[in-house]
């Protein structure tokens, strides 16, 4: 069973709100870098970046991070070489305030992996987490700094965030698995 929780306007409002909160937290966009976690986090990071630029009239670097090789729940060979895929390659995160952007915060394992991947490429001044949905059920001591919406969920449910860029529609759905 699929239930739409948020439509496009609601999702856009949340992104704008997160944008304002980022400015509020960092008192501007100085030394700020946005890093989206592939796939949907990348698009969300770019959207936040565009909005920051509109408001502050300054370009905020936006990167994308592929954390596949850092995951602890999917890796087959524990000794496999870890490749950090931070795009663009010349993105400097050392001494920057990095905001990791993802669609859903669940167990916290993705963010843990992303932090490892980030730190392998540089030493940020700080790392914060922005997510569109926090659905609870953490398995690691991780907390989001910027949250679009808290959605209390059961373990038997799934939260799907759709973004226009690849899904053709902006929406958040709650899927009940049987």
């Amino acid at each position: 069973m699929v239930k739409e929780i948020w439509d496009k306007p609601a999702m856009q409002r949340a992104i704008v709100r997160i944008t304002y909160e980022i400015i509020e937290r960092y008192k501007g966009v100085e030394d700020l870098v946005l890093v989206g976690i592939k796939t949907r986090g990348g698009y969300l990071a770019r959207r936040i970046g565009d909005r920051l630029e509109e408001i502050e009239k300054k370009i905020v670097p936006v990167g994308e991070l592929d954390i596949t090789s850092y995951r602890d729940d999917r890796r087959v060979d524990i000794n496999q070489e870890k490749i950090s895929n931070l795009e663009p390659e010349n993105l400097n995160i050392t001494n920057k305030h990095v905001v990791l952007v993802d669609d859903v915060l669940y167990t916290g394992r993705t963010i843990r992996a992303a932090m490892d991947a980030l730190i392998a490429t540089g030493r940020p001044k700080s790392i914060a987490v922005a997510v569109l949905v926090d659905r609870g059920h953490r398995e690691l001591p991780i907390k989001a700094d910027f949250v679009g919406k808290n959605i209390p969920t059961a373990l038997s449910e799934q939260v799907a965030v759709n973004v226009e860029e690849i899904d053709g529609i902006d929406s958040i759905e709650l899927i009940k698995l049987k």
Partner: protein
Amino acid sequence: MKRYLILEDGSIYEGEDFGADCESSGEVVFTTGMTGYQEAITDQSYADQILVFTNPLIGNYGITLADYESLEPQIKGVICHQVARHPDNWRMQTTLPKFLKQLKIPGLQGIDTRELVKKLRIHGTLKGRITDSKENAVSISQELKQRNITQGVINRVSTKNSYPVPGSKRNIVVVDFGIKHSILRELAERDCNCIVLPYTATAEEILNLNPDGVLLSNGPGNPEEMLMAAKMVQEVEKHVPLFGICMGHQVFALANGASTYKMKFGHRGFNHPVREIATGNIGFTSQNHGYAVDPKSINKGNLMITHVEVNDSTVEGLRHKKYPAFSVQFHPDATPGPHDEDSLFDDFMSMIDQRKEEERHA
């Protein structure tokens, strides 16, 4: 019976009377809304003003108890081209002329409102007097020129005592500069427990109530008379999420070092396009303001402009860079007008919830 509008520049408009049989003076302003005359007339932001409707026919759907925006409107007069003679609507309880009679507000119809509005657009807002005789026109217009009609107007429209609007969820303190009921309706819809305080409330009085959020309401007159309120905001914004609407927006701007100016003829009506800078989205908004925040006076270090008017680039929305506080010049509560921007109340709610969440973890 004949009735006249005499303006401070000496011009005289001759028309027919309706509504109450009395004389009154006020700032002559115009609204471009095609409907919503009852909400406009009962809107306290029109206190001490004579309102000209650009729509040629008003009053055609009568007056409904549920659509009041305040109980004791302080508007000084209503001018239109024609009042409907046979209003008809299933919701109406009375007609516009009878309603104005009860409230002792004079009306004037049958003048060329197009010409009058053109004049107001060229000269800017003018003071005027609705009267039954034009004999003393010269002395009236001279007297109008010297009077400052709207001085201290908020003192007359703001509540004298605080009162609760009970709800069960978030605790909101509403500061009344001349509040429209629709703002309270929007808060009630979101189940807020509100306490409405007079505009003289101090920061200490507000913070002693331990609110989750503070809303600064709309209101009439010159924002620069509200220096005490601006001082209150300077203290409150440090502690509590804050949302300002219309006058509240201007007071918020003053509190953070910006200044305001009197616009030539203001924005009144509800077909004003506003662009949200972050997204480029355009929303149509209900507006009623004769003053605006001067964009040059805004300190970019602590405020950011979030919304601008599309036609003349007036500042329509601000947000604080350090505290959870924001404000809009237009009316997100609409009534009358489009509800394009009522989500701002939801933003205020999530701002409050976010804050509560942080306090719980801290």
